């Protein structure tokens, strides 16, 4: 039993390591920023996830303590990775991409990052202008 668990854990660790290095390697290798964004967002996340799960299982099987923290961290990383990617993509759009290089939205409105209307229309105009 222990043997199987050990192999399973070892496999998890190796898979995690491979994905991690793929993620970071992609960050080096891929030519454009938007392409590079794909690699760590996915690969590194799952790489770390594997490592975390293996850690959890390791403690469960070999130390006898069930440590759920790794699971929490994993979930947290999965929850936040898309947001991170979204923000970095927006930053890249904002800094380095021209709106004309993007496909049209098809419904006549601009992409939010490029639409000054969003800001000028959305606020409720509480402007704190009067000096106390």
């Amino acid at each position, binding site marked *: 039993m222990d043997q199987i668990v*050990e*192999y399973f*854990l*070892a*496999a998890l*660790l*190796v898979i*995690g*390591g*491979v994905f*991690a*290095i793929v*993620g*970071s*390697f992609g*960050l*080096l290798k891929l030519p454009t*920023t938007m392409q*590079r*964004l794909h690699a*760590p967002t996915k690969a*590194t*996340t799952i*790489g*770390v996830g594997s*490592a*975390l799960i*293996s*850690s959890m299982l*390791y*403690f469960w099987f*070999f*130390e006898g*303590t069930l*440590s759920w*923290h*790794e699971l*929490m*961290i994993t979930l*947290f*990383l999965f929850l*936040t990775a898309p*947001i*991170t990617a979204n*923000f*970095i993509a*927006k*930053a*890249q759009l*904002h*800094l*380095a991409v021209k709106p004309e290089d993007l496909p049209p939205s098809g419904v006549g409105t601009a992409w939010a*990052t490029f639409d000054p209307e969003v800001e000028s229309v959305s606020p409720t105009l509480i402007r704190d202008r009067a000096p106390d």
Partner: protein
Amino acid sequence: MILNYALDFAFLCFGLGLAMNLYRVFRAPGVPDRILALDTMVINVLALIVLYGVRTGSGVNFEAALLFAMTGFVSTVAYCKFVLRGDIIE
């Protein structure tokens, strides 16, 4: 036994990953790349901490790992928000 080799392999992978991130932080065409590299770096470091915990059989740094994940996310969003809007809590 095999687990130890696997652990070494994992250390190597995440370590190399860290090194690559480091390179990308310094050599990047723009800020988003650097932010991305830093974010990945945090995740790799977090993994290394967890692996180190496995190696030493100690879970004492798991809260640190959790916090790294949290703060890494918050700081990445903050950097991006700064690039996008200037004011991060407008």
